């Protein structure tokens, strides 16, 4: 018990990893359950965030170098561009289907 408490108190790498893991899981949950294209994109953003958090945590605890932070920067940058394209597509979809409910936009199927 005490050991457990101790492990709770002195915050270390694992704590951050767990937080990131929770974020990741929530992101997955979103993409699984949401029907709204934008919400799904939100989920993707969560996933990317969790990855970024991981990198920074590692760069802090593991390497002590800034490489990890640079990776995070790249992730953020890619997240931005992905979001831009994604939202553009969402708009195009909205123009064509008048909805962005991915269930309503299922013409491509067997």
């Amino acid at each position: 018990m005490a050991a457990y408490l101790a492990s709770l108190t002195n915050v270390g790498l694992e704590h951050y990893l767990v937080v990131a893991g929770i974020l990741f899981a929530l992101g997955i949950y979103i993409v699984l359950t949401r029907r709204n294209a934008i919400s799904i994109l939100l989920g993707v953003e969560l996933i990317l965030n969790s990855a970024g958090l991981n990198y920074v945590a590692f760069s802090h605890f593991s390497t002590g170098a800034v490489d990890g932070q640079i990776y995070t920067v790249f992730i953020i940058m890619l997240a931005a561009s992905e979001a831009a394209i994604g939202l553009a597509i969402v708009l195009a979809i909205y123009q064509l289907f008048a909805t962005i409910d991915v269930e309503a936009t299922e013409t491509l199927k067997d």
Partner: protein
Amino acid sequence: MDISIDVLIFYLVSLVVVGSACIVAFSRNIVHSAFSLLGTFGGVAGLYVFLGADFVAAVQVLIYVGGILVLILFAVMLTHRISDIDITNRTVGRIPGLVAVAVFLGILVYAIGRTDWVKVKEVAFEPTTAAIGNLFLGDYLLPFQIAAVVLLVALIGAITLSRKEIKE
């Protein structure tokens, strides 16, 4: 046992992160989800600060909060007439989703606990901006350039996709 202040703050921030993420995940109203994303991003930025990544934290705030989030809100507004009250944000198959994700998370945590991560002896805090800048123009020049290409093409693409077609 003593609980140092930073520990408390860590848990607080993590709580903010996770909590707002949960709202993002479970809220019925997409606007709420979108806004509560702010909490998550901000919280993560906070954690970055804790980890001594000041530059990254700044980038996070600038790009995510200032850029992506706004973009998303625009998209939400554009794709939903403000007039109608409940803005749709259906979720289906909660239960299987939850189960799957719970298992998933369980495995992740288990693995996180079990894995022996590389660790450095003492953890140092020093400003990173300069180092990052140097690396961007040194070792990481090529990725940096490629990132530029990515952004360029993303720009072009976004325009091409979203522009209204009036083709003759």
